[in-house]
């Protein structure tokens, strides 16, 4: 898939960050071929990969486009129940995912990666922002309802045990969503057994078991099967392999790669493990304290990182060569509290390049020019920002 297509980049352009509601119907933007009008569709034979009858905009239209996503959680306990403060969990996240690609989201705890995932699924309601799924705005008047969204977008969580109902057999857990969506019970059960086979668990052996009778890796396979039973087009994997042992992690990563190719899925792969994200993703979004700081292809982020935070994150990885150990930690201190984040650039309190301009103005995630490298939210990398390291 074209990762750097205009469509993929469009929502992240600078100067486009006001109230998303001021911008009218998202379907009015962009190339007319991107719209969901069937007459304008390209010849399906031109496209690679399996066809999906639910595909509306063709390959050029991002499967998911997010603009200005924001969620601030109130801190309870103030006078008369008024909030004492706000946790700025996610504060202005923009990105787009092309069909069939894997977007990795990395960052430390508290950077808002899991909140972003939950906002996309509408498991928590966003304060502001717009989620457009294949050309249809989610939750809008004539757009996609949240219920319909969840048939097309499913999620696999970190804790494989907590995310399964201990009183349901594996088969019932997997069939549950389909039954709730109106499928007759025998058919839903059949489907559940097919899904079990798909994730590499023999239905005859596993269908009637309960979650506690499975190992961690097997339970995570069941969670994947349950998510896929709804035939989603987009799967959000939120730290889905983080709790697994290394030898099992590799099995599940292989399975995820196979399923993606076989079912033409699109993934959002969230993890704190930079190595796993590098292995799985086509493009990577780096987040820090609720803000995206850098987005680019895997090669761009891992080989030519531009944000000082990304650089620090990458050089914090323990080496796998005992003869070449790290000697100096790239950063000191912990990430600050997202309750009262620093003004301006949120990374400036730990940044080796920080200057007064960083405290005054917030850098926007932006590409610098026409043939510019990938977008980064850093004054030191943006020409004309006033930072001494930036080009004038």
């Amino acid at each position, binding site marked *: 898939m074209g990762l750097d297509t205009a469509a993929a980049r469009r929502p992240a352009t600078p100067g486009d960050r006001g109230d998303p509601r001021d911008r009218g119907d998202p379907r009015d933007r962009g190339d007319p071929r991107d719209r969901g009008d069937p007459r304008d569709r390209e010849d399906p034979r031109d496209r690679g990969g399996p066809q999906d009858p639910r595909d509306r905009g063709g390959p050029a239209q991002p499967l998911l486009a997010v603009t200005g996503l924001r969620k601030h959680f109130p801190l309870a306990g103030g006078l008369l129940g008024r909030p004492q403060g706000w946790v700025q969990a996610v504060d202005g996240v923009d990105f787009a995912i092309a069909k069939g690609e894997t977007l990795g989201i990395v960052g430390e705890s508290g950077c808002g990666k899991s909140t972003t995932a939950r906002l996309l699924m509408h498991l928590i309601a966003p304060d502001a922002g717009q989620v457009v799924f294949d050309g249809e705005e989610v939750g809008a008047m004539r757009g996609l309802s949240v219920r319909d969204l969840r048939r097309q977008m499913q999620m696999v969580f970190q804790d494989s045990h907590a995310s399964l109902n201990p009183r349901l057999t594996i088969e019932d857990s997997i069939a549950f969503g389909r039954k709730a969506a109106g499928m007759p019970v025998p058919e839903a059960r059949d489907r559940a057994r097919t899904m079990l086979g798909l994730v590499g668990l023999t239905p005859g052996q596993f269908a009637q078991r309960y979650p506690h009778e499975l190992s961690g890796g097997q339970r995570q396979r069941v969670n994947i099967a349950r998510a896929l039973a709804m035939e989603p087009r987009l799967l959000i994997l939120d730290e889905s392999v983080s709790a697994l042992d290394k030898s099992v992690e590799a099995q599940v990563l292989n399975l995820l790669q196979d399923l993606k190719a076989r079912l033409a899925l699109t993934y959002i792969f969230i993890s704190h493990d930079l190595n796993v994200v590098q*292995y799985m993703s086509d493009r990577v979004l780096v987040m820090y304290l609720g803000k995206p700081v850098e987005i680019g292809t895997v090669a761009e982020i891992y080989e030519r990182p531009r944000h000082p935070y990304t650089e620090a994150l990458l050089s914090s*990885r323990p080496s796998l060569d005992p003869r070449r150990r790290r000697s100096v930690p790239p950063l000191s201190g912990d990430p600050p509290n997202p309750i009262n984040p620093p003004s301006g650039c949120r990374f400036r309190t730990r940044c080796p390049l920080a200057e007064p301009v960083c405290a005054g103005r917030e850098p926007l995630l932006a590409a610098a020019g026409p043939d510019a490298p990938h977008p980064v939210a850093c004054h030191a990398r943006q020409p004309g920002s006033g930072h001494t390291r930036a080009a004038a």
Partner: protein
Amino acid sequence: MSLMTASPRRPAAPLVAVDDLTVRFVSRDLDLSVVNGVSFTLEPGETLCLLGESGSGKSVTLRALMRLFPPTARLGGRVTVDGVDVLALDERRLRAVRGSLVAMIFQEPMTALDPVFTVGRQIAETIVFHEGASYRAADRRALELFDLVQIPSAARRLDAYPHELSGGLRQRAMIAMALACRPKVLLADEPTTALDATVQIQILLLLRALQRELGMATIVVTHDLGVACETADRIAVMYAGRFVETGDVEQVIDTPRHPYTRGLLRSTVQGAAKGARLTPIAGAPPDLADLPPGCSFAPRCPDAREACLAASPDLYRPAPGQGARCLGYAPDLAFEASPPLTPAEKDLAA
């Protein structure tokens, strides 16, 4: 320096000597053999890393050095630390050893620290208990310790409660507490697993510097190859309660000998080409309540033979300083001559 036997060149007893340690957890309807015969020695200034997956017995082995177990544990073998027979101590003398001779850093500082006392008070209490110092002297020492573990504005942070500190500072406070009574052996159970990447490397480097400075023997338990590479002098790879491979860190990483270690190193995503298939170890870790009689890795091993199912293999020495519990390194050639087991035969064994 040898891990499995005391070196003949060193007449003095090693600082830590563990000999044929076994730990079982027994209750009314459960009998789990978690550690099944672990032996090693450790000298001052040395860092041993116990590497293994969950359930491999690495944390339990570590806790045996302090006998930090619930009453359901049944221990066997011998554990000697600085001449003290840890498994034979009575409760009162065990309390005196814990914290002063052997100290421990836990994975999750939030649950290991007491939430209702300030961290300074908790450190001072340790010093008062073990060394009989006054609280005034203990407070001074706590301040020195906070400087030692590089906590900024140390005096102010001593008066903080655990929840008021960030994860990295909490872990530093716990390290300070562990060092409070100048232990000879420092145990670290997944010391950085709960921390963020940029904080993890700070703590690993701090531990390395402290150990160099204070000359303690250190045992680090981890599931993370990267942590092992950053900290260890020697690595012991654990599987189903046994050391399946031991050696210098370079030996184990460069030329892993046991099929399990080889599989572990092969299945890592680090350095794997994007989209290329990983080579995972087949199957899942064994059920400790029902271990096979032979090599516990045999059901997952690509090279398993008939003989592997019969008895647990001894520790062989494929190279000087390196050991592997695998029949493939047995001096007789029966292993090479026999055909590998088919998957069906392995299933039958598992």
